[in-house]
């Protein structure tokens, strides 16, 4: 299986990339890690007229803490995140479970986020942590809340002449923790069920902020807002987390498929939410 023909531009700056993409219209695509795009092109599910390769743009590979958030540039590979000392919580927990080790060496976090595959892990992590997407277009940069960025199945809210240049993931100053629990059939598989959690603790030990988001159990990565509401203001406990797990299971909208029944996936959501909250709390308390 081999890709169809396309035009290729190796951009040397973000501005050049945006211009090249705009010229190509809606059939042009940004090529970052290419680990989702190229397989789709080989299967000819995707036939872009033009690829704008951003891999040679300097400065997009930065990963650093800055102003209370983690900045992840558009060329930061999954493997860079897994190896980085700067990451913690759900981000650190999820990084090793993205795809497989070789795909992680090329695939980028920003690319996965922009892909908006509901079976992708990162958007759950970003929803749980309340991250922002930094987009750049001809008129400059804007930040988009991840909840607004993820529009639909494989659909983001970028304009045609915009590209993702970075992600900003909040790093709380106080006690916090996070976790990502993923059920995959084998390494490299998409999640059958994934749950990302993020907890912040107040001085009295109660939960001051909570994020719970789910992978592969709805048409898009979905926040379990009822579960989050249940958690805030309460002290962490096994019972509380079990209750939150049930709330998350209720918020999930899985389908019966070859991976398993919807009924079962809900139970996995409940169990994984509970486990991911316990792991987050343990981290926050330590």
């Amino acid at each position: 299986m081999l890709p169809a023909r396309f035009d290729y531009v190796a951009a040397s700056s973000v501005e050049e990339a945006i211009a090249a993409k705009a010229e190509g219209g809606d059939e042009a695509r940004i090529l970052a890690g290419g680990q989702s795009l190229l397989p789709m092109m080989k299967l000819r599910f995707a036939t872009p007229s033009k690829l704008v390769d951003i891999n040679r743009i300097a400065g997009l590979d930065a990963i650093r803490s800055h102003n209370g958030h983690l900045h992840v540039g558009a060329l930061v590979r999954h493997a860079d995140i897994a190896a980085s000392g700067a990451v913690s919580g759900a981000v650190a927990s999820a990084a090793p479970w993205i795809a497989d080790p070789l795909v992680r060496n090329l695939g980028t976090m920003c690319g996965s986020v922009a892909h908006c595959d509901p079976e992708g892990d990162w958007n759950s992590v970003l929803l749980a942590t309340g991250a922002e997407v930094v987009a750049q277009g001809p008129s400059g940069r804007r930040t988009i809340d991840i909840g607004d960025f993820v529009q639909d199945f494989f659909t983001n809210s970028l304009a045609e002449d915009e590209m993702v240049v970075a992600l900003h993931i909040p790093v709380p100053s106080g006690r916090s923790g996070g976790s990502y629990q993923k059920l995959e059939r084998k390494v490299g598989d998409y999640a059958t069920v994934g749950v990302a959690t993020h907890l912040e603790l107040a001085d009295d030990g109660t939960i001051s902020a909570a994020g719970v988001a789910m992978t592969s159990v709805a048409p898009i990565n979905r926040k379990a807002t009822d579960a989050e509401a249940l958690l805030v203001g309460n002290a962490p406990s096994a019972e509380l987390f079990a209750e939150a797990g049930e709330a998350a299971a209720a918020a999930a909208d899985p389908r019966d498929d070859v991976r398993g029944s919807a009924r079962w996936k809900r139970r996995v959501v409940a169990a994984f939410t509970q486990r991911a909250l316990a792991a987050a709390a343990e981290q926050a308390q330590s």
Partner: protein
Amino acid sequence: MTDTTTTPPEIGGIGHSVKRVEDARLIEGQGNFLDDISLPGMLHMALVRSPVAHARINGIDSDAAMAVDGVLAVVTGELMAAHNLAWMPTLSGDTQAVLATDKVRYQGQEVAAVIATDPYAAADGAELVDVDYEMLDAITTPQQSLAEGAELIRDEKEGQTDNLAYTWETGDEAATEAAFASADRVVSLTTHYPRSHPSPLETCGIVADVNSVTGQATIYMTSQAPHAHRTLFALVAGLPEQNIRIISPDIGGGFGNKVPIYPGYVVATAASLLIGQPVKWVETRTGNLISTGFGRDYYMTGELALTNEGRIQAMRVDMLSDQGAFYSDAQPTRYRAGLFHVCTGSYDFPHAHIKCRGAFTNKAPGGVAYRCSFRITEASYLIERLMQTAADELGIDPAELRLRNFIQPEQFPYETATGFVYDSGDYPTALRKALDAAGYEELRAEQAAAREEGRLVGIGIAHFTEAVGAGPAHTYDIAGLKMIDSAELRVHPTGKAILKLGVKTQGQGHETTFAQIVAEETGIPATDIKVIHGDTDDTPYGLGTYASRSTPVGGAATAMVARKIADKARHIAAHLLEAAPEDIERSADKFHVAGSPDQSVTIQDAAFAAYTNLPEGMEYGLEDVTYYNPPNLTFPYGSYVVVVDVDPDTGVWKVRRMVALDDCGVRINPMIVEGQIHGGLTEGFAMSSMQWITFDDDGNCIGSNFMDYLIPTAWETPRFELLETVTPSPHHPIGAKGIGESATVGSPAAFVNAVIDAVAHLGVRNIDMPVLPDRVWEAIDSAGG
């Protein structure tokens, strides 16, 4: 590893873990796989496959494809029909479409082929071939297929009035029914062994080079059976057999997938013949998964009649197989469901009756022996799952139940209720040894304690007996060709030898192990023996490598031809030592006069003399060939114990331990044997846990690439603990039984039994493979656990 060597390491005969000869080229990237072959003027072929499972073809428009830069030809069924090549025979006496002319009968069926100067252009062209399909309803299960009023899938087949592919039965029905009628207990299990696919990492491919002047067809092909394929090519294409040379280069895994002849091979050869240039076709992974030989897909109901004490009195089986659109099992002609009747397993009981039916469906054809000997995996799975069911139903420990029913060592040779004559075995010793290694008693205690805490631990046992090494010519054939095999050995004046085989390695290490057999029998160091295989112009005739037949048949041929050579060398040695031939004895590396070890010559001395100094009347040279017709199959066996932990919240199970004892008779190269077992166990684990091909209601294949057809990585694959006993085959020249497939045959039941054992106390008796977490959770949930 048991040290059973009789030769010193420098000879490297049987029993030495000699390092592999084939490794040198493979670790440096200098292997020669099919896709590595490039010939001057070579063209590239891409296949157009049906996107739907069942449809009538109203027309094919190839104009747009022909307009693509680099596209030279579009081959359709119509063109093939003009050369009488639109259909070809299958290995089970059916016919199969090469390129569809009337209708497509499964998703992925070959409809047209695009020939171009470059693979990218061929792919572009294939995308533009416009086929007008008139949709028909798809039949996706054999039950639907055999239901009243089901649409006829094989409407082109003369005399075919329904979707039945075959029926076959064996055993004594009356005696079996009588035993069931008077049994204390009857235990039953209905299970589906799902469709699986061998999917070697190298897909199938061909470079066909037909010389338009001489008619010589040189065909490089991913073939496990090059000689048989040459004969079939001659019969199908009407080419003179001496003008066909099939070269099977380095093969990137076979596992049964490279036994059949596929439409792509035929079309590429025809295209080369018509265009007059070499044509290469290398299958895509999707093409491989959706169209080439699958394995299994057996719906089985098995029953055991037992006494209250758990002694089996009889077995009966009703089996329905899903054959796909063409009946193309690779199997001996007389056995319509392969050797499925070996399903009586390792147990001593007098009566069995097996009833088999196969149905056509709108799925890919196949039924290859995926890393097993003709349907033995299904048979072994059924009996070993039934033993677990019986143990659970009767409340007898599953190890104890097996020990009560084993064929005893003194009963060999043992004739089973379905007519196999098992050659040798000591089953109780094997099982006890495996149980001891696993710490069975302690595990049972731990299991009981774990249940108290709400944890689920399972201990699964399987004790399988395989029937491999087909086979005796009076019974076994492939497409009429008797399943003999051959070896040709030539020792050169300097004592270095060339061994040529009718069988063909796909990674099993023939270049190493077959040299070891010759070393054992002649004293020529294994490193002085070059092994040639896979080229039909340069090797003696043979039926190929599958069904674990290389060592049982080709290995026996090698031992026998080496003995002929050693015998001639002994006569030459007698001449050189001026003694009578009957006074000459052979040690590992010398011929000497009986009683006078100092009076000796080496095999190398004898080899030189064979060309320089012969006794009166003896023919020059030291060369011979043997065609070996085995007197019986061989029957390797093994005892496997698996320990699993099951997560009751999610149904996820993990293998904690896997203890595998194999008895394959004499081990030629213990290192290679263990490697074979590791690989086989992994495929067994794969089938039990994740690896299956399923279809939606429209006949769309779910499992058409490696994102959906799951092959375990190193991360999921359990660690294996290997054990052995050695019970030689009494009828095999070197006592070897074959090992390539044992672990795939035996292990699935062990894994599944372990999961069932973990939840049996809740009343769960069956979960079909693959034992996916949701199935486990649903089983626990519906059992009220």
